[in-house]
Each structure stands twice: as C-alpha cells, then as structure tokens.
C-alpha cells in the first residue's frame, strides 16, 4: 500500500497542481526553484493547507484533522515552541501520544543525543543557534515515529561537518523506515543520497520525476540539468575500495566499511583514448552509449562497469570525435569520489 496524493492549492498568484505517489519505505525528494511550491505541497500533505486529496495505505486522509494524521514535519523555519526547552519540544509529540512524562523525556533525550545536542537539552529555542534549532526540529519530527515524514530543507542550516553526520543519521533512519518520506531540499547531494526518487517542481507543476540516475541521465530542463550533476551508485566498501552493486570496483580516498553510496560529478570523469599512467586511481574501459549537448557542456553516457556519465567541453568532443560504440578509458581520481554510509552513523 502506498501514498497517493493529488494536491491542488490555489493562492493569489500561485497554483499548485501536483500528483504524488510514494511507496512504503520510499523517500521522495521534492526539488525545485524558490517559490516552486515545495513547502505548499508539504503543507497540503500534512493537512495544514486545504486542497486536493490524500490516500495513505488505502485510507483517505481528506476528512482527517491534522492531528490525526500520523505525520512528522520539519518546518522550513523550524517553529520550535518558544516557551519550551529543546527537550520538551522533542518530548511534546510523545506526550501528545500519551507516553508518560519520564519515558517521553528519556526518549527525547536519546533523540537529542543522536543529533548531537545532548548538552543543549535544557536550552530555550531563542538560546539555540540556527543549526542547533534545525536539529531539534528534526529530532522533534522523528521522535513520534510518523507514517509520513515531511522534511522541509532539514539540513539547510547545518555546517558541513554536522551535515555529514546528520545526513548519515537521517539516511540510516530513513533506510529502516517503513513509512513514506517526502523531503524538500536545494542540495542535490542530499537529494541523491537520501532519496529513492526525485520529483522536480517548477511553478507548481511536476516537470520531471524518476530515480536520481534516470533524472541525471535525461534532465529535461536547465534547472534539472544544473541540479543533478552526479554519478551515484550503491556498493559495499572495504577499506579504500568499493565493490559496486551493479558491477565494477572504485578506489576511494577515505576508507569506509559496509554498504555505502558512492557519488562523483560527471565533470570529474576524464576520457582518454588510451589508458594513461598517473595519479588517478580509477581507470576502466567504457563504450559511448550516447551524447547529449547542453548549453556549454556535453554529457556523455558511457557503458561499462560501472556505467558512468562524463561532462566534457564541446572542444574536447570535437577533439575526440566521439560516436556511440567508441571504446574509451574513463579515468577518475579517488579523491573525487565521496562515500556516504547507507546505514550506521559516521562521516563521509
């Protein structure tokens, strides 16, 4: 069973008209430029803004008041209750579900610890920094174990290091999560690491959707092309190498262990007619599957183990005279490859 939503919201100067399907356990990333309607879509799903129809696991949510919808929302501006401490904010949802005070506080404390804020449990939101507040908001939304998670840019205010940590924690959580998740983000990396499927909105409509790989392979608008410039794989890491699920082995700079996402931008892939000697650790034979011209770059789809996207300049394209079926060597520096553990915390 899954979530089916037909969202229709009309505002003064804006109209949202989006159909959304989310399978159980699936994470859908909602992407799009400012004012595209991402926040509005989340609000409609939560029931905060009336409009359209939502069915989850076969049950219609339309008549359901917000508080009876098993949702967890991270608001773009957090909306932490200013009169409660961080701990009380996180415990609030549990208390609302009838969990006893002591148990709720203990559970809330565990969540704060998970997002690295154990030391700020007693702080009021006004005494938290922006990034700290965002982490409390995330903990608050996750603590109630909702069926539908709605995350509005949940990592935007985090510093790079915390972001890696929280992203990994969130990824682990979402990996185990059997409910539905809709995640709004401006960061393609968040989207590709955390989401199973991307839905891209522009001006209140879906302009493209698909798995990160599909969208990356055939971006339909400039916004999408700009956004999804990443090669992304799953694999199992062992020290400095990752054995990819779809075949192929990549050498990475930062050792990791266990299941990981592996990502690098198409621009990081160099193409050589012959296998070169030099610093790059990853060199493997590929054949050209297709060539797409964008504004200033050319995206080359290459088959191989792994298959890969490479961005090259138009001048290079002319030099190499690429045609489908041509055999080449793909070269990738290990330091260009980022890994993100799929389960278990720890930095990428």
């Amino acid at each position, binding site marked *: 069973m899954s979530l089916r939503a037909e969202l229709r919201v009309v505002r003064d100067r804006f109209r949202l008209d989006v159909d959304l399907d989310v399978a159980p356990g699936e994470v859908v990333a909602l992407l799009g430029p400012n004012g595209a309607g991402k926040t509005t879509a989340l609000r409609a799903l*939560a029931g*905060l803004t009336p409009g359209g129809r939502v069915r989850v696991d076969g049950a219609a949510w339309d008549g359901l*008041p*917000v*508080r*009876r*919808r*098993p*949702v*967890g*929302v991270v*608001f773009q501006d957090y*909306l932490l*209750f*200013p*009169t*409660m401490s961080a701990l009380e904010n996180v415990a*609030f*949802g549990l*208390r*609302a*579900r009838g969990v006893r005070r002591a148990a709720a506080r203990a559970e809330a404390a565990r969540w704060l610890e998970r997002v690295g804020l154990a030391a700020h449990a007693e702080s009021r939101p006004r005494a938290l920094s922006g990034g700290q507040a965002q982490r409390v908001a995330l903990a*608050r939304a996750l603590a*109630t174990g909702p069926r539908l998670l709605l995350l509005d840019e949940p990592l935007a205010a985090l510093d790079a290091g915390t972001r890696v940590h929280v992203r990994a924690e969130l990824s682990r959580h979402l990996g185990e999560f059997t409910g539905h998740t809709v995640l709004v983000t401006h960061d393609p990396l968040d989207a590709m690491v955390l989401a199973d499927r991307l839905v891209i909105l522009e001006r209140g409509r879906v302009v493209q959707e698909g798995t990160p790989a599909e969208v990356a392979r055939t971006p339909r608008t400039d916004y999408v092309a700009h956004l999804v410039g990443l090669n992304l794989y799953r694999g199992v890491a062992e020290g400095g190498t990752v054995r990819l699920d779809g075949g192929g082995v990549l050498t990475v700079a930062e050792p990791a262990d266990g299941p990981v996402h592996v990502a690098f931008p198409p621009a990081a892939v160099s193409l050589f007619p012959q296998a070169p000697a030099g610093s790059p650790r990853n060199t493997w034979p590929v054949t050209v599957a297709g060539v797409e011209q964008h504004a200033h770059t050319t995206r080359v789809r290459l088959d191989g183990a792994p298959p890969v996207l490479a961005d090259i300049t138009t001048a290079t394209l002319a030099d190499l005279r690429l045609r489908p079926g041509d055999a080449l060597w793909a070269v990738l520096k290990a330091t260009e490859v980022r890994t993100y553990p799929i389960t278990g915390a720890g930095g990428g």
Partner: protein
Amino acid sequence: MIRDRPLVLVLPALAGLAFLVVPLLGLLVRAPWAELPARLFSAEVGNALRLSLVCASLATALCLVLGVPLAWLLARGDVPGRGLLRALVTVPLVLPPVVGGVALLLVLGRRGLVGQHLEAWFGVSLPFTTAGVVVAEAFVAMPFLVIAVEGALRAADPRYEEAAATLGASRWLTFRRVTLPSVAPGVVAGAVLCWARALGEFGATITFAGNFPGETTTMPLAVYLALETDPDAAIVLSLVLLLVSVGVLAGLRDRWVGGAG
C-alpha cells in the same frame, strides 16, 4: 539595550501616568492621616478588607476558568457570528453595575429564572451571601479578562498551533502547552484587570449580594456607607483599599508578568 527614548512617546506616557496618579495625590493630601491607624486596625475594616481580597481573588479564579476558554472560542473557535458574540461579552461592561445587579437578581435571585430552580432543587441561594459577592464581581469583571485574552490570542502566531497539530496534539493539549504559555502576558494582564475591577466592584455587589458586614460588605461598600456619614473616613478607607491593591499588584513578581519581554 536601547536607551534613548523618544519624547513623542515619553511625554504622552508621562501625561497619562500623571492623569492616573495625580488624583490619588489629591486624595492623599486631603486624607485625615491621624485617623488612618485607628481605621486600619479596626476589626470592621479588617473584615471588609479580607472579604474584598478573598472575593476578588475567587472571582478572578472563576473568570479565568470560564473566561480564558471563552476568549479562545472567540479567537480560534471558528464560530459563526463571532462579532456579535464578542460584542455580547462586553454587555456587563456597558450595563450600569446596579442594573447588572438587578439583572443578576432577575436570573439568580430566589424568584429568578434560574435561581428558583437552584433553590428548589439544590437548596442553593446566591443573593445576599458571600458566594453572591463572588458571582456579582465575576459578572462585572469577566469581560475584561475575555477581551484582553482574546486580543493576545489574535496577536499570537497560529503556526505554532499548526506545528503542535502535526505532532498529534489535541486542541486541548495544544491550548494548554503551546497557546496558553505564549499568551501568558495577555492572560496576566487580563487577570490583573479582572482582579482590580472585582476589588473595586460596588454597584452590582450591593444590589445582588446586599450589604451585610462580615458577609457581603466589601471595602467599596464600606466606603459607600462611610460616604453617607463621614466623607473623610471614606477617603481613608479608599486609600487602604488602594494601598493593599497596589501592594499586591506591585508584588507580582516580574516573572509572572514577564513573558517575551
């Protein structure tokens, strides 16, 4: 943190303060100070003062219990005809208090619409009892609480209540834990108004509850009687009432009045 204060605000503020406080000085100048200690420590005044404080506090409690939910209903309840309801709430304000007392007698008196049943079924009779004083004061003072709290609720950001709803909180829990704390300064302001108004209540009280020393004679009633015979004594009694009230209100720790500021 910002120290400079604009004259265009400070001057009217001081004028306002003077307007409210200077008449008090007039009373102070005029008061027969020599009599004050004797009055202050007389059993009669002690009784009236105690009764005033107890009744005003009970009335305020009653107003809080009934009035805060009413304010919530008006501000958030999505009820039809809200404008009319809000206007009706101000009825006891506009009604001359003695007429208010008559209205209470007509409804809750022994022969009143409701009162006759209260008497017949429960043997309860409100007029001419201390409970009656509380009822009369609450009737007159409640609009202050309701309107002040409703104003505070309207100024509060409803999106925190949305956030609470997404966390599964019932409207009651939301009200208790989210809404109410965020409008606490407004509730305190309303309660202060309510208490002070109840403390000074005269017309409805004397009409509905009568004027029985020790039972329904609150300070304002004592003042009224003193006015009949000894106006200077009335001033002294008023000052005693004021002194106590100002003492109580000034003693409210800033924390309770505090809030966001």
